[in-house]
């Protein structure tokens, strides 16, 4: 009962949207069946529902909004603890549905997907003493993966309405946090046997790699998207290839979890507040839902 309630509360907006979408489709279908189309071919070209599968790869960058560190510096500048983010470096993947309503060159699309963002960053610490041997460095290399259930809505316009149809698109998305995983590799460097001009005298070693799920560190996300693409028909399948850019403005990081005592904060690894920017390339295979002719071909 508790789990059921939890699931419903977490994904309530998602469920509401899906339900209304299904009802809307049914409503539109019902309205359509009441009317006898005069010219099936024309209507098919003018107005159509498409449903299919979609998948692709994406690259994520983050923009820090507020910076935080797992350490409270007593006698040095806090900027020394700032993280360095790797931009659009680690590919992520997404897979889901493509639902499109087409009418007279314009399409309203939604592609609910499992959308995995992969991002990475590093931070360093340095302790120094009176001699060159009193030096010790630590590097935290963090790979963070976040999976959202992504609900975008986009309006497309077909620039050309030939067999190959280039289009532009713009819209917005809301993403429900689904899962997250963080891997921290800790590498340390000891100058205990340091010899000037002898790099071999500096000893570096991997101290630990900690890999744990951390979904509680993230909030749901929203933002805007834009993109370009092309669609073409092959047999009765329409293939759509598109490239999108997504931009969110708010932090996806849950601040209430930041300073809690956790496996990560216990060794000084905390997340900044950051927003997500993402480039993605996708391919969809969609099928027409209305007015399929006897040869099951798209006209």
């Amino acid at each position, binding site marked *: 009962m508790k789990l059921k309630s939890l699931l419903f509360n977490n994904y309530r*907006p998602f469920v509401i949207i899906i339900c209304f979408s299904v009802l809307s489709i049914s409503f539109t279908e019902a309205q359509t069946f009441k009317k006898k189309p005069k010219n099936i071919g024309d209507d098919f070209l003018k107005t159509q529902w498409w449903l299919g599968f979609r998948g692709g790869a994406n690259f994520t960058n983050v923009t820090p909004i507020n910076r935080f560190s797992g350490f*409270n510096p007593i006698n040095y500048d806090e900027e020394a603890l700032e993280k360095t983010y790797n931009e659009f470096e680690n590919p992520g993947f997404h897979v889901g549905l493509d639902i499109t309503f087409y009418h007279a060159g314009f399409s309203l699309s939604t592609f609910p997907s499992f959308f995995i963002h992969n991002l990475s960053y590093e931070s360093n610490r340095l302790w*120094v003493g009176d001699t060159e041997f009193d030096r010790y460095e630590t590097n935290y290399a963090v790979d963070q993966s976040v999976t959202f259930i992504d609900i975008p809505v986009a309006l497309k316009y077909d620039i050309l309405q030939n067999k190959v149809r280039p289009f532009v698109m713009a819209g917005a998305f809301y993403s429900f946090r689904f899962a997250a995983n963080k891997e921290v590799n800790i590498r340390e460097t000891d100058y205990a046997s340091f010899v000037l001009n002898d790099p071999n005298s500096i000893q570096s070693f991997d101290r630990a790699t900690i890999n744990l799920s951390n979904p509680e560190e993230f909030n749901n996300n929203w933002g805007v998207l834009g993109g370009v693409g092309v669609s073409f028909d092959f047999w009765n399948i329409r293939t759509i290839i598109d490239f999108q850019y997504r931009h969110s403005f708010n932090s996806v990081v849950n601040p209430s979890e930041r300073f809690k005592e956790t496996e990560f904060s216990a060794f000084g690894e905390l997340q900044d507040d950051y927003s997500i920017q993402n480039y993605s390339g996708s391919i969809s295979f969609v099928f027409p839902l209305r007015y399929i002719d006897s040869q099951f071909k798209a006209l």
Partner: protein
Amino acid sequence: MRYLVTLIFASFIFLSCSKEEEFNPESAFLQIYDDNNYNVAYQPVGLGASDSNLFVLSERNLDVSNFSGINLVVANQAGDFTREVELEDIYVAPTKGLLKIGTTHYFFCMDRNSLRPQLGSIPASGDQVNFSALNLSASYPLAAAISNNNNLILLSYNPESQASVISVVDLNGTVVNQASYSIGPGDDVRTAVVNHFTNRSDRLPFFCGQAPNGSYYFNGFFNYTLSMVFTDLGDDPTGVIQGQALNAGMKSMIPIGGNNYAFMGFQFSDHFISGQIQFSTTGITSSVEFFDRNIPEISEKANSRVVTYSANSAEPEMVIFASETEGRQVVLYFYDINTGGLLSTYYIGTLNPFTLADLIVFEDGSIAVTGTTFLAGRFERIYITKINRQQILDIL
């Protein structure tokens, strides 16, 4: 179509504008205070809180003395570092814990030249630390507590008379009552007391206090042995729970009403806890008589602190024992003071070692723990972790 578009965009607006969970950064956190000096180590001994500040009293190594000097680290209520006050190196050997009376925090320490105890006081602002010398002869301050009528209790060791001294001190540093109990001739105890101050591995669990019935108690040396001593400040103790030289006795104890106490004891490397037991404060018993079950995870030289706690009412419902494990974590044990039973256990720390120095309870039901963690496994730095009331309820 129009209906669908309207619905979807309305949903977006609703979801985008929905309010995120309220978060108060002062309610729960873990903060680690880092110094970039390779050769510096911090050893906190006490934690305190005013309306706007958190105080960590810490020991530091001195070049001029084998005794530890004193630092005060001040943070705001969210745990963000504010400043560090390095006290004059004439003041050494602070007692464990900070004693809050009104808005001022108190501790005892010692003048390293005269070995005369000093009373240190920290105002709510934490701007400075004031000292006043006690009208006592040379005496090592071992432990301190608050008396029932808001005076201070000091347990000290007089090296000249080789006696444990328990003093009641007012907030101006005037000794208003005192009793002295001879330990016996010989230098063994003196060596043990000095080692307690100078070697961390030789630290001893000194503490003192006053029971609700007015009886004073201290865990210190009596008759050559580390013992739990009950006294009305007369010539002789009213009762003694004997340890076994330095190898057995009590680690922490708190009165929980009547003659009932909650305590953690040790027997060589073993430890045992009782959430509620009735002590006879008259007569002589032995700590080993209370040894019922070993708690193997507690490390041999572990620190221990105990506080009363109430999650749901004004009256104490439980005690929280804090200690250190063989796995170099800090462990909190929650015991019911009515049944004496264990309610829950909570661990602090994972990859880097964590040690315990002090544990305090806030008026809102939060608790805070301070101690040290070893960054990169080697740099000993202060941490404070605060656990709010809701988290404690979740733990329970």
